[in-house]
C-alpha cells in the first residue's frame, strides 16, 4: 500500500497510508471506532478504489486491474466480514459449497469440503439450516468456514471475534495462527486489545485515518 488516500463525501477515511505486508505474515490492524480499519480492508479486497495511491495485493495492482479479473482475485482471498455477509436465502451448506462451486469443483468434492469446513467450526449438524435460524456466533463461524474453505493466499478478517465468546475468540485466533504457519498471510482488524495481547504479532494502529504505529504487539 503506497500513499493511499480515501475519503467519503469530502470526509477523509484514510490519509496517505503507506505500508507493506510480507507474504506469510500475521498482522493485526487496530484503532478506535472510525479509525478507518474497515475502509482499509475494503480497499484490500477491492470493494472500493482509493482516491489516490497504489495498492498491490498478491501481485494484483487493484486500481489497474480490469473488472473481469476481480472474481479471480477475490477467490484468492478469504474475507471474514464483520456483519458475516451470508447468503440469507441459502442454507449453511450451500453458503459454503457455493464458493467451492465457483472453482468448478465436482459436486461430491464440494459437499465433502463444505462438510469438513463446517465440522472444523462445530457446525456439521447445521448444514441444512438457513443463516437466520442461527445465533450470531454460529453465523460468524459459518462466515469463517466460508472464508477458509478455499484455502486462500490471504485472509482478511474484520472483527472476526466480535460475535464470539472469549473462549471461541481465542480458538479462532489459534486457528488463524495455525493457518498462518502453513504460509497463508493473515490480516485481522480488531479493536479487542485483549486479543492482540494474548496473541502478539505485528500490529498496525490507525487513528483518524492515519497509520500512527507499526510495531510488534501493543506494548510501547
Amino acid at each position, binding site marked *: 500500500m503506497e500513499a493511499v488516500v480515501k475519503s467519503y463525501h469530502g470526509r477523509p477515511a484514510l490519509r496517505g497510508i503507506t505500508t507493506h505486508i510480507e507474504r506469510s505474515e500475521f498482522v493485526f490492524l487496530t484503532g478506535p471506532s472510525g479509525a478507518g480499519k474497515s475502509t482499509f480492508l475494503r480497499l484490500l479486497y*477491492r*470493494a472500493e478504489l482509493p482516491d489516490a495511491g497504489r495498492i498491490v495485493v498478491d501481485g494484483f495492482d487493484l486500481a489497474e486491474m480490469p473488472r473481469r479479473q476481480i472474481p479471480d482475485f477475490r477467490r484468492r482471498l478469504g474475507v471474514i466480514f464483520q456483519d458475516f455477509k451470508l*447468503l440469507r436465502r441459502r442454507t449453511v451448506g450451500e453458503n459454503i459449497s457455493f464458493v467451492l462451486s465457483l472453482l468448478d469443483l465436482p459436486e461430491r468434492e464440494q459437499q465433502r469440503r463444505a462438510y469438513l469446513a463446517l465440522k472444523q467450526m462445530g457446525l456439521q449438524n447445521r448444514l441444512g439450516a438457513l443463516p437466520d435460524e442461527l445465533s450470531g456466533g454460529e453465523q460468524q463461524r459459518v462466515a469463517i468456514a466460508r472464508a477458509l474453505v478455499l484455502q486462500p493466499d490471504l485472509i482478511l478478517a474484520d472483527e472476526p471475534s466480535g460475535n464470539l465468546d472469549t473462549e471461541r475468540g481465542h480458538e479462532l485466533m489459534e486457528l488463524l495462527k495455525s493457518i498462518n504457519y502453513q504460509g497463508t498471510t493473515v490480516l485481522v482488524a480488531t479493536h479487542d486489545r485483549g486479543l492482540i495481547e494474548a496473541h502478539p504479532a505485528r500490529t498496525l494502529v490507525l487513528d483518524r485515518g492515519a497509520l500512527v504505529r507499526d510495531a510488534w504487539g501493543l506494548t510501547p
Partner: protein
Amino acid sequence: MNRHGWREVQRQVRESGAPGGVAILMVAVATAWGGLLLTVHRWVEHDLLGRRQNSSVVAVLRAPDQADSLASALAARPGTLRWTLARPATVRQELAEWFPELATVLLALDEPSFPALLKIEADPAAAGELVAWLAARREVAVVQSSAQWQARVEQALGRVVAVGFVLASVLLAGCFLVVLLVVRLLVLDHADEIAIMRLIGARERDIRLPYVTLGLVLGCTGGLLGVLALAILEMSLRSVLPAIAPEAWVLAAMPLVGAAAGAGGAALGLVAIPREP
C-alpha cells in the same frame, strides 16, 4: 449451470409469484394465437383455396355450336391441362341438381335458354394468360377464373393474419415487459445478496445466468401451455374441420418464441444490477 444455479432458478420462480404467472399466461395466449393463425392460414391456402392445385377457368360460350372451334384452338395452347365441354342440356341438369327447389322450373325451360360452358383446368402460372386469351375470343361471352376469387380471399386472409400477428406480437412484447419487471424487482430485492456473491468471487455469469434462465423458463412454460391449448382446440375441432392441424414446426416454434421473449426480457431486466466500482 451448476446445482447452485438451478436451485437459485427454483427460488426465483417461486419468488416471481403472480407476475411470473401473468408472464406465463401472456406467452401462452400469444403463442397459441400465433400458432392458430399460422394453422388457419395454411389450411385456407393449401386446402380451402387449393393454391397448390390447378386453377379452374370457366368460359360461357355465346353459342353452343362454337364450342368445337374454341376447343380445337384451346388444344393448341400451352398450360391448358384438361377441359370439358358442358352442353346446354348438361348445364340445365347441373343447375337443377344444385338448386333442387328450382328444378321443376329449370327443367321446364328450353335447352337453348342455357349456354354451353367450357370448364378448363389450367396450370396456375398460365391461368392469367388463358383468361385474357379467352376474353378476347369472339366465341366467349363471359370468362371466370378461380385464381381471381382466390386472390381476393388471400388478400383478405393476409390482412387478417397481419392484424393477428400484430396482436400476438403485442402480447409477446407484454410478456417481455412483465419478465423484465419481474427480473428487475428480483434484482433489486437481491441487491445485497448479489453484492455478497461478488465479494466472495462470483463471476458475472454465475450471478446473471439464473435470472436469464428464469426468463427462459417462464417463456418456455408459456409456450408449452400455448402448444397444449392449440392441441386441445385442434382435438375439439377435429370432428368438424378434420383438415385443420398445426404443423410440427409451428408447435416446435411456440416454446422457442416464448423462451426468446422471456430470456430477452430478463436480459434487459439485468441492466438494474449495479456494476463493480
